[in-house]
């Protein structure tokens, strides 16, 4: 009888909760969007007396047709919020004390102002979040600007920053080019370094439909993932050998004449240099470096050639490397070789992570740009000062007035230099102040919607947290930040509301902007992020500047006004047409959108694409439908067509960088052309198409800075793209590796390859910090730490996992942190399935986790999920959480063992290749 499945007693604290009957009051339906990944699945909530009592499938929704994964199907649990941080708290002499919001803002604000006085504004780090909606993200970046620092960043740095940099520098914008739905039309789906079956489950609905319609699915991954289980062809690759693999495929394409000659001639610059590099990657060398047999590489290349259009999907397996930016460019080049860009069923379908990481990136919650990818140049600041209607000189005066870096021989203000990245904030605390190119080290850290356990070098992070003067955590949950350190004092926890307790827009992976309705009032004493931003601005004395054109009701900046404000400034990536009114109208008419083309067929949104995917050009009056498929020249710009962007000049070394013999349908300029400026309009004789008002504003401006939108309107009227019509570039001459080349990871077990494929040399100043490459790779760790260690996701959890591990419906499904290890390695080390083991890394971190012995990983490779936290080097930290807030499931964070290593362009952290050893505990 004991064999019968009975409930586990020890989990009795997962309380039985009562269901509300339908008779207890009127039920209203609210539409929101799942907050757990970038697919952007629609959620329908049933609300009764302010309580979220039911969740229904949103079957009208174009992205998910009612479907969810485990996370989305459990979002109603947010309505219970048992484990939430319920009120502001402060740690005093090792104990958590409840305090009021007023006290919290006052105390934190006073300390920050004191730090600002003594160490400068750059000593406070504002770490924002992809969990913000667009309005909050925009307001947060503006807030950091008014505080006077570029030390502001968010998770995009550690998920797809290398994609954004690599892809934008190849053809204009750093984003997914097509959409999940468009994969229905793919004849080949090439997935590398991604496990969408777990990380983006509803995308599999679209991928499997593509497959059932005859598309071939190829999965390249070190692990036989759940995605691989659905592949037609699975290829196992050594972690960190992606570029050789891609070059190996292209080698066969060039060898067999499978490249799209015409496409390359018309629309690609620099392919000859790629040919020269690819020629080195003969099948033998590819096998030596990647471990993949020639037959597999050849078959993958042939399948892609024979099944066009094909799409390429990648995620963190590609991006999180020291060569991440090169990895992403190699994949872009693969698509350019095949001519798979700008077509339905093709493109680079880069699956972003968090629900609004695309939006938070677009709105510049990054240390290297203002909203809209304007960068940090003086022009950029002047543009935004005009949009904000504040004095440029006042903003400049908020910054540290000294200079620590030089640009072209003259000193530059920290206002124009990249801030420290989130991946390196710990070095901003721990590094010798002499070596940091700003006034002082970081003294206050604000983790606002961020999981520290998603970042590498755990023990050093602990030390950094302990060294800070002030640690502030703003989040719906205490997060691992509250417990992983041994601070006794001066830690503040401020309860933020989730996106179900507020409203506004978000941008899903495919650039579609969706509107969320508020489901319920903020739980307990939590506040929406924009209220909290406003409170800090009040404390610092710039609330009036911050909300000069934004109504504030009861301490809450009006979301719609924020949307309207960014509509006035986001010209560079086309966030100008998505007004609150248009987005809300789409929300009310979800059922009118075609589930493959995403185009509304009839109804009030007729002709628009769902979510007005950016670029949605011009002012809303222009009624641009948004751009479903980027770089599609077969339709006019006015209907969502676009060429590659002219971003890199018009000529280089005598070669034309503009498109040749290729233009978007209906273009009056039937050739390549540069980006539009007022002068260019005059030369073309189109200046008088502007109204008098537009002329007044547009004079001396360009398509990005003309606040009237006139330049964009006139360009599009003549069938042209405002940003020009150029070639994509296969070589990025400003990058450390203009042609993507293979470089061994810092912690590589293949010492035999280091001499031939070395990493970079150490750098003195990279995002304000010295950065090591060669000096680490020079040491051989592979004898003592023989196993390659890699990491990834589980379907039940998101990111650092605090929110999802606090949800009993999810937590019950994954109760133990584990490590996947091949049976051979397990037997060699005396490890048995289900037993505890110690995993030790070369930088001294160690975690105690459960062994999962499985052939899913090959011999010599181990895998750990990164969502766990709440244990530290063998110890359960449950008692360090404020009472009643410890997540149901806690476990070791794999990032305690993960090591140093940063991408050479964006400082993305390396989490996909390191070394470790495993022994029984």
């Amino acid at each position: 009888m004991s064999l019968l499945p009975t409930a586990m007693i020890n989990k009795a604290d997962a309380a039985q909760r009562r269901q509300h009957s339908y008779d207890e009051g009127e039920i209203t339906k609210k539409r929101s969007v799942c907050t757990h990944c970038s697919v952007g699945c629609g959620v329908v909530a049933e609300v009764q007396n302010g309580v979220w009592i039911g969740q229904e499938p949103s079957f009208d929704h174009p992205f998910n047709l009612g479907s969810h994964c485990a996370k989305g199907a459990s979002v109603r649990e947010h309505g219970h919020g048992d484990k939430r941080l319920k009120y502001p708290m402060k740690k005093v002499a090792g104990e958590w004390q409840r305090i009021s919001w007023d006290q919290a803002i006052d105390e934190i604000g006073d300390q920050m102002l004191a730090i600002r006085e003594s160490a400068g504004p750059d000593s406070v780090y504002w770490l924002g979040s992809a969990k913000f909606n667009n309005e909050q993200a925009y307001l947060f970046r503006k807030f950091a600007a008014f505080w006077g620092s570029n030390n502001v960043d968010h998770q995009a740095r550690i998920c797809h920053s290398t994609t954004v940099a690599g892809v934008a520098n190849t053809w204009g914008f750093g984003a997914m080019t097509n959409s999940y739905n468009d994969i229905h039309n793919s004849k080949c789906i090439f997935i590398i370094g991604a496990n969408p079956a777990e990380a983006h489950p509803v995308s599999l609905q679209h991928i499997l439909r593509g497959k059932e319609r005859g598309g071939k699915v190829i999965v390249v991954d070190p692990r036989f993932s759940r995605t691989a289980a659905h592949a037609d062809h699975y290829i196992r690759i050594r972690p960190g050998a992606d570029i050789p693999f891609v070059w190996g495929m292209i080698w066969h394409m060039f060898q067999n004449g499978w490249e799209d000659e015409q496409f390359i001639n018309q629309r690609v610059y620099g392919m000859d240099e790629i040919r020269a590099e690819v020629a080195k990657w003969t099948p033998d060398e590819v096998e030596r470096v990647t471990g993949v047999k020639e037959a597999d590489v050849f078959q993958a290349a042939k399948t892609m050639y024979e099944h066009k259009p094909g799409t390429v999907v990648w995620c963190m397996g590609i991006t999180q490397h020291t060569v991440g930016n090169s990895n992403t460019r190699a994949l872009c080049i693969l698509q350019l070789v095949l001519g798979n860009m700008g077509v339905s069923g093709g493109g680079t379908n880069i699956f972003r992570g968090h629900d609004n990481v695309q939006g938070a990136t677009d709105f510049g919650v990054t240390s290297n740009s203002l909203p809209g990818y304007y960068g940090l140049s003086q022009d950029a600041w002047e543009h935004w000062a005009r949009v904000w209607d504040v004095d440029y000189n006042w903003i400049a005066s908020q910054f540290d007035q000294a200079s620590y870096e030089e640009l072209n021989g003259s000193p530059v203000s920290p206002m124009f230099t990249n801030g420290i990245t989130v991946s390196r904030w710990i070095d901003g605390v721990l590094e010798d102040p002499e070596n940091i190119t700003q006034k002082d080290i970081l003294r206050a850290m604000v983790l606002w919607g961020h999981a520290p356990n998603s970042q590498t070098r755990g023990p050093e992070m602990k030390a950094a947290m302990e060294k800070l003067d002030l640690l502030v955590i703003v989040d719906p949950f205490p997060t691992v930040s509250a417990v992983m350190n041994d601070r006794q004092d001066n830690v503040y926890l401020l309860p933020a509301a989730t996106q179900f307790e507020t409203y506004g827009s978000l941008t899903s992976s495919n650039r579609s902007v969706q509107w969320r309705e508020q489901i319920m009032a903020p739980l307990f004493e939590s506040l929406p992020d924009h209220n909290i931003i406003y409170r800090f601005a009040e404390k610092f004395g710039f609330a009036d500047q911050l909300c000069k054109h934004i109504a504030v009701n009861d301490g809450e900046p009006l979301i719609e006004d924020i949307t309207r404000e960014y509509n006035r400034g986001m010209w560079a990536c086309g966030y100008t047409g998505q007004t609150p009114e248009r987005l809300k109208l789409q929300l009310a008419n979800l059922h009118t959108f075609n589930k493959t083309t995403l185009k509304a067929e009839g109804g009030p949104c007729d002709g628009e694409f769902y979510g007005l995917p950016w670029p949605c050009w011009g002012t809303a009056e222009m009624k641009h439908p948004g751009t479903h498929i980027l770089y599609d020249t077969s339709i006019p710009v006015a209907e969502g067509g676009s060429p590659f962007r002219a971003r890199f000049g018009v000529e280089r070394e005598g070669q034309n960088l503009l498109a040749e013999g290729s233009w978007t349908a209906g273009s009056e300029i039937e050739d390549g052309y540069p980006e539009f400026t007022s002068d260019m309009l005059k030369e073309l004789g189109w200046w008088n198409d502007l109204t008098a008002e537009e002329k007044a504003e547009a004079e001396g401006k360009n398509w990005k800075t003309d606040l009237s939108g006139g330049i964009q309107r006139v360009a599009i009227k003549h069938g042209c793209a405002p940003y020009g019509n150029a070639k994509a570039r296969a070589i990025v001459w400003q990058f450390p590796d203009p042609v993507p080349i293979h470089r061994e990871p810092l912690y590589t077990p293949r010492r035999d390859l280091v001499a031939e494929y070395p990493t970079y040399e150490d750098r003195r100043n990279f995002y304000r910090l010295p950065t090591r490459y060669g000096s680490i790779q020079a040491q051989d760790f592979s004898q003592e730490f023989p196993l390659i260690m890699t990491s990834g996701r589980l379907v039940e959890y998101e990111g650092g996992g605090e929110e999802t591990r606090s949800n009993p419906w999810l937590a019950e499904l994954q109760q133990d942190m584990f490590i996947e290890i091949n049976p051979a390695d397990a037997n060699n080390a005396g490890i048995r399935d289900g037993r505890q083991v110690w995993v030790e890394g070369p930088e001294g971190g160690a975690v105690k986790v459960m062994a999962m012995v499985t052939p899913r990983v090959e011999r010599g490779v181990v895998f750990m999920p990164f969502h766990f936290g709440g244990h530290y080097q063998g110890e359960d930290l449950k008692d360090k959480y404020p009472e009643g807030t410890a997540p149901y499931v806690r476990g070791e964070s794999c990032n305690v063992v993960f090591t140093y290593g940063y991408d050479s362009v964006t400082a993305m952290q390396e989490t996909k290749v390191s070394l470790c050893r495993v022994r029984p505990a």
Partner: protein
Amino acid sequence: MARMKFLCDAERCIECNACVTACKNEHEVPWGINRRRVVTIDDGIPGEKSISVACMHCTDAPCQAVCPVDCFYTTDDGVVLHDKDICIGCGYCFYACPFGAPQYPQEGAFGARGKMDKCTFCAGGPEPDNSQAELDKYGRNRLAEGKLPLCAEMCSTKALLAGDGDIVADLFRSRVVRRGGRPDTWGWNTAYKD
């Protein structure tokens, strides 16, 4: 007359557990009780397949046949339900069930088992439709509202189908025709005789 059936398309199931959490969500099923679960074979090697399993609502249900207090009945829709008021939690139905569907919550200090709980095809139990009593004992009654089981309605890939057996079979057949291969109606031979 409609005859409700579940079908899980193993070619599409990605073991995402949406069906499992949707069920928890809709009925507030407590920790430790799983009306639905996902079973994976050949985990981690080529050929890996997953199937989502719950009570299949069998024809001439074996659970019904062994129940010493006769608490089971089959509705007009072919859904197998039971009356918790007379269930004694003896556990016989668990042994009789080919799918391991019945579950027993731990109750009381001495580990005595509580009343059996299982998938209701989102059709509640023998209390007035959507009354508080039905809600407390069996969860929501979606069929009475003209809706189908939430697990299938929320399945990430539309692998899990729930509805009248004939339309389920039709949809599945057309899918198999499109993609080729053998139609594998997992569990149907065991569960259904009609």
